[in-house]
């Protein structure tokens, strides 16, 4: 059982990113891979030219990663080089829209054999980056006010001021008048003075520069561990 719950070993579909690309459906991670994977299921991928496959994934608004397997019958020959990079893909197909996901394209090299060790996730999912309190309410609010993008973008500056390992939670708080605030709280293990200084730095250097989505209320806060 891998981290997405894939348990099947018979594949009639290509799960791009789950690494289950051969007929036995199992995969072992091989080689350097510093990204995580968006899972997209496409029926009968062998019928799709590689460029079309890439194009479909690139056009998905939340696409992140394409994995090609060096041994898979599904991989098109020009793209199977293990040293392939995002640039190689763009050179092969200059019509791909770079601006759509400029930093989300990765190529990794995998050898099929065991689903159990695959590291699979959508790097841009809320749940992966924030601990969600009452996930349904939070996700609905994020969707309603289109906050996914700003929350994705906030991760880098939050990590920069509070540290990579800091825990971030997202909670929807309703005030006495019935107004909702989406509150992102970072748990900080330093002292109060440093925590507040870090929050001020985040606010000044990044948060104030961001456009606001009308009607939404997103608040960044800090709590001391």
């Amino acid at each position, binding site marked *: *059982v891998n*981290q*997405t*719950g894939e*348990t*099947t070993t*018979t594949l*009639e579909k290509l799960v791009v990113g789950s690494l289950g690309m051969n*007929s*036995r459906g199992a995969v072992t991670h091989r080689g350097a891979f510093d990204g*995580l994977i968006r899972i997209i299921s496409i029926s009968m991928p062998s019928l799709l030219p590689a460029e079309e496959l890439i194009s479909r994934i690139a056009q998905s608004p939340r696409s992140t990663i394409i994995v090609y397997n060096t041994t898979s019958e599904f991989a098109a020959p020009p793209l199977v080089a293990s040293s392939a990079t995002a640039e190689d893909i763009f050179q092969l197909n200059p019509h791909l829209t770079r601006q759509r996901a400029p930093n989300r394209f990765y190529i990794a090299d995998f050898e099929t054999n065991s689903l159990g060790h695959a*590291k*699979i*996730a959508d790097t841009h*999912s809320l*749940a*992966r*980056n*924030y*601990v969600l*309190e009452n*996930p349904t309410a939070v996700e609905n609010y994020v969707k309603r006010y289109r906050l996914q993008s700003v929350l994705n973008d906030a991760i880098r500056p939050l990590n920069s001021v509070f540290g*990579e*390992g*800091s*825990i*971030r*939670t997202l909670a929807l708080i309703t005030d006495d008048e019935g107004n909702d605030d989406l509150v992102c709280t970072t*748990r900080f293990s330093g002292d109060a003075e440093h925590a507040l200084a870090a929050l001020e730095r985040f606010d000044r250097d990044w948060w104030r520069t961001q456009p606001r989505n009308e009607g939404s209320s997103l608040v960044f806060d800090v709590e001391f561990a």
Partner: protein
Amino acid sequence: MTDASEPKIQAQIPASYIEYTINFASPVIKLGDSRGGLIQNVLEALKPHGFSLEGVETKLGSNKPSEHAMVFRRTTPKTPGLNIGLSYERIVVAADNVDWQGAPQLIDAIGAGINALQSELSPDFSSQQFILAMHVQIKDKSIAELMKALVTDQASQLVAGKPSFTGVFITGEKLTVTIEASVMFANSLWVRIIREHDPFVRLEEIAALLLEDEKRVFHALNLEEGAL
């Protein structure tokens, strides 16, 4: 080792999966020759549990018999998913987001499917394996900090610099527990409990053992399941 006086850390399970495999002593090849009757009889047994013809898939196109399979997917409700798969060599049951409250119904459904397959095929079981895999999320402590209790400082020297996360892989008698960092959920562990069972152990007994195993893992990590 956790301190009994230490308050438990609240944890939630945003996603979990089970996989239950029954291996046959030798392949039961008659599956391919009698699939019409098999589907009908197994579906009849599974009908009260939400299965229908819509959810049946036969995978018999390969030239290799070892790749042939038949899958019964629950269609009502469709989610959380529950599938019962049959190949010539094993039965594999997979389900998503199962909780202990729903365990009796799940056991009934799986039991009905397996009994129907058994009466159709009469396979000899050689072994059974049950895997529970779950993402366990906490918010009051970092998972790296949580794992420190289970891994020695010496293990940290296996990597240059400060480790960002340490995992655990422990095998006991017929039981393996693995704990890694989740890549699906923030500040979460990816925990797998894998237990081998003798061929004739009943599903109810398997479930009881699983509950004990799960409780033990939570206790070792000083976790308590609840809302965050």
